[in-house]
């Protein structure tokens, strides 16, 4: 079952909305890190709930997941996961340049994730005439088993995940992370309606 089947026009429209949201999220990240962030075209794919859990369980080197809930109007809500790979965690700490005792590596990851998630979703929401509020971001403890548990304990039934593959290169460094938006069917139907409304304007 894939409720999120998009027409070519809907896909193009969603991609452009996401590009604009990504651009502003990178700008925020660049300001935060006081450097330039090189941005690639983010790729988007949709994944059914069951497949996602299987895929994430197979991903051996996932080191950290930061999870943050979001709520808009008209049934648009979900959970944003930022998934980091093992080899990137140290680089992020280097990038942020915190003193060792200033903030723990966990807190740095939460900081950076929240900047990306909330900027991205604020800009995305504004473009579809919506507005988001957020739960506090949380870092999942020792990822391996807790991720699938976390996914199963979600307070709403999510049917589909929209996976946005983000690659950030920051001058000498680069790190990859996946932003995965888990959204329920009502939100998917609503987003499609909004895409059609935008497309009808052209």
């Amino acid at each position: 079952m894939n409720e999120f089947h998009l027409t070519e026009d809907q896909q193009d429209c969603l991609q452009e909305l996401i590009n604009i949201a990504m651009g502003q999220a990178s700008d925020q990240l660049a300001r935060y890190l006081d450097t330039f962030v090189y941005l690639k075209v983010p790729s988007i794919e949709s994944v059914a709930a069951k497949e996602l859990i299987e895929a994430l369980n197979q991903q051996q080197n996932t080191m950290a997941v930061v999870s943050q809930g979001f709520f808009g109007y008209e049934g648009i809500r979900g959970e944003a996961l930022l998934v980091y790979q093992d080899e990137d965690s140290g680089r992020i700490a280097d990038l942020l340049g915190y003193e060792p005792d200033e903030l723990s590596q966990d807190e740095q990851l939460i900081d950076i994730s929240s900047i990306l998630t909330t900027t991205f979703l604020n800009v995305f929401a504004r473009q579809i005439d919506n507005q988001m509020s957020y739960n506090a971001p949380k870092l999942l403890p020792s990822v391996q088993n807790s991720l699938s548990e976390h996914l199963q304990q979600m307070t709403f039934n999510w049917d589909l995940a929209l996976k946005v593959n983000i690659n950030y290169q920051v001058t000498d460094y680069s790190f990859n992370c996946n932003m995965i938006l888990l959204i329920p069917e009502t939100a998917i139907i609503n987003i499609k309606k909004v895409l059609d409304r935008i497309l009808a304007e052209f």
Partner: protein
Amino acid sequence: MSPSVLICDDSNMARKQVLRSLPEQWRTSVQTATNGAEALTILRDNSVEVLFLDLTMPGIDGIGVLQGIQKLKLSCSVFVISADIQPEMQSKVKALGAKEFIRKPVKPDVLINYLQQHGLL
């Protein structure tokens, strides 16, 4: 008289957004390109006067197009329209000869205003 216009963006929607932001009399003489390589081919063979250029594209990106324009010594006016709004990027494209940096999504009044500022309207 309307100038010959090229719109280069990998997104169909973004190209349409630019198109409908243009002054009405300009819309008849518009060509489009979906990536940097296509844009450079058109630029080389035609006399494009105004180019609206996206930055983040697969293959040759907007920066590559700006560099190509410099190398080929083409005289078109380039307006960059991009989601990559970092200040450093904005100054970089201007250093490469772009007239203006316009943030996405483009609004008709903003675009018209810039065209007037540069004496194109």
